[in-house]
């Protein structure tokens, strides 16, 4: 195919005879995107870093440089650590659950069965739905009095009295994790499915010929080949879960008794309820740093895995 033949030439300098001011065009075409990302993403990060070193407050109208005093305060702030641990716990639990359940779903979808298109279509519903709507929907599903979940569990004999899901400090975080798993697992499954479909069928057939059972072909052939996809999808999911805001803010607002407060909701409250932009920026910068560390650890692990596989 002609298309395939040209692909290896992608990175090569072009040998076009006609002189085009290529560099100039490139600059011109990339400028709008750069301006957009620089002003809405890079500038705020740098500005936030600066604000975090000041006592900026929209109430007192102060803006003096105070060095690291916000970070010193942050280090001794139990509310911050409370939110930090909740965020880490939420990120770990939801990423692991979503990856494992997503893999299970993908393995089922990999098989041929009637109505597969319908199931795949249904799986896009949670992904397309606005997160705020998901939050409200789970508010209704898990309502302490009239929620359908309590009704089903009660009638199935699994519980003997209604659970006040997101109204109680014991179960509020679990409810949020369930909502997040509901919303993102199906999409994870579809990503993993495309990864699974690249595993050559001939490999699996050959293993079957040699008498390998289903789970052996899974464990020794499909899983190792799927590993890079699994890890990258997991990384993106973890970084996304780490930023969780909508779900928590709408379902519990961080309550009851701060039991679901995460770094995003805490930052938002410090910024927009107390209007302490200096301290609020310190919280969000600390969050940015934590996210960076997660990404770094993940990437290092990923690179090692890929090296080992080669």
């Amino acid at each position, binding site marked *: 195919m002609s298309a395939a033949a040209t692909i290896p030439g992608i990175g090569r300098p072009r040998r076009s005879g006609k002189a085009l001011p290529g560099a100039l065009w490139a600059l011109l075409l990339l400028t709008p995107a750069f301006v957009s990302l620089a002003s*809405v993403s890079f500038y705020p990060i740098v500005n936030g870093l600066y604000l975090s070193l000041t006592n900026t407050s929209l109430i007192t109208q102060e803006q003096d440089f105070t060095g690291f005093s916000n970070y010193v305060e942050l280090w001794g702030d139990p509310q911050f650590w409370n939110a930090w641990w909740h965020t880490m716990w939420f990120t770990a639990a939801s990423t692991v659950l979503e990856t494992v359940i997503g893999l299970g779903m993908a393995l089922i979808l990999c098989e041929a069965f009637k109505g597969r298109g319908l199931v795949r279509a249904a799986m896009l519903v949670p992904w397309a*739905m606005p997160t705020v709507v998901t939050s409200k929907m789970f508010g209704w599903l898990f309502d302490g009095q009239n929620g359908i979940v309590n009704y089903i569990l009660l009638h199935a004999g699994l519980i003997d009295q209604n659970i006040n899901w997101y109204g109680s400090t014991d179960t509020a975080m679990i409810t949020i994790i369930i909502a997040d798993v509901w919303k993102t697992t199906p999409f994870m499954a579809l*990503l993993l499915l*495309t*990864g699974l479909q690249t595993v050559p069928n001939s490999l699996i057939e050959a293993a079957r010929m040699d008498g390998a059972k289903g789970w052996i072909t899974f464990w020794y052939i499909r899983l190792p080949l799927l590993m890079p996809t699994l890890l990258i999808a997991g990384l993106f999911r973890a970084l996304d879960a780490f930023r969780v805001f909508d779900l928590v803010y709408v379902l519990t607002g961080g309550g009851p008794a701060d039991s679901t407060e995460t770094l995003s909701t805490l930052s938002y409250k410090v910024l927009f309820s107390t209007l302490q932009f200096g301290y609020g920026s310190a919280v969000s*910068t600390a969050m940015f740093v934590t996210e960076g560390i997660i990404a770094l650890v993940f990437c290092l692990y990923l690179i090692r895995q890929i090296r080992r596989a080669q």
Partner: protein
Amino acid sequence: MNDTRLPLQTVAIYLGALLIFVWSGGPFIWQFSTSFQLDKALTSGSPSLIPHPFTLEHYYNAFVEKQLHRYVWNSLVVSLATTFLCLFVGSLAAFALSRLNIKGRFGILMVILSVSMFPQIALVGPLYLVATNLGLLDTYTALIITYLALGLPLVTWVLFGYFETLPREIDEAARMDGVSVPGLLWRIILPMSLPSLVTTGLLAFITAWNEFLFALAFTSNIDRQTIPVGIANFTNLYYVPWGDIAAASAVVTVPLILLVLFFQRHIIEGLTQGGVKE
């Protein structure tokens, strides 16, 4: 593979598939059914999936009392503007990265993609200050400018992937015919990329339509608030109006679901190429 499957395995697969279907579709089906039921039926203690008696009361409340259509209008304006801007700016960048000889283009792509991983809460404070200083609070402009940057990384990434699949002979032939660089993009590459433009446009639209954090921070009245902010504020004084919320949810989600179902194959392809492939 079918012929080697044991009957037990077949049963397990169908059970699993049913479970996935109910898990994914069930909650929304219940929400949809809720929107047609009277409050009395919803709190009766014996829920039923079939609305009986059937009522449109919640839809009436959502539109007449809560003015849902005004949020829908705001969301439409913001999301459509975002979509077109994203496609315009994104296709320029993707075209430059794919077709012009740029050093370190994969580095540039990586930087663009990593921007989408920044925690948005770290952006909202400084941007709020900028918007205040420029008098952009409670405007569509502030939301559109922000959403453009939020949608741009994915749009650029996916379009870049698509442009890379278009044969380079076309470029050569066009250049022989004396077509200029913008002509190549506008008259040749873009018309060939229509399917990908539709998918990426839909992704940008969904990003803007569903965004909550910035809309919450930047807007404070119904003239400019978008649907997520509107629905988040759907509360009555003495009780939570679950039926009204369900009606509003159905109104804003059903069109989206139909769009997604219609384009589902493209979306999955587009996103896997953008999200997972290196």
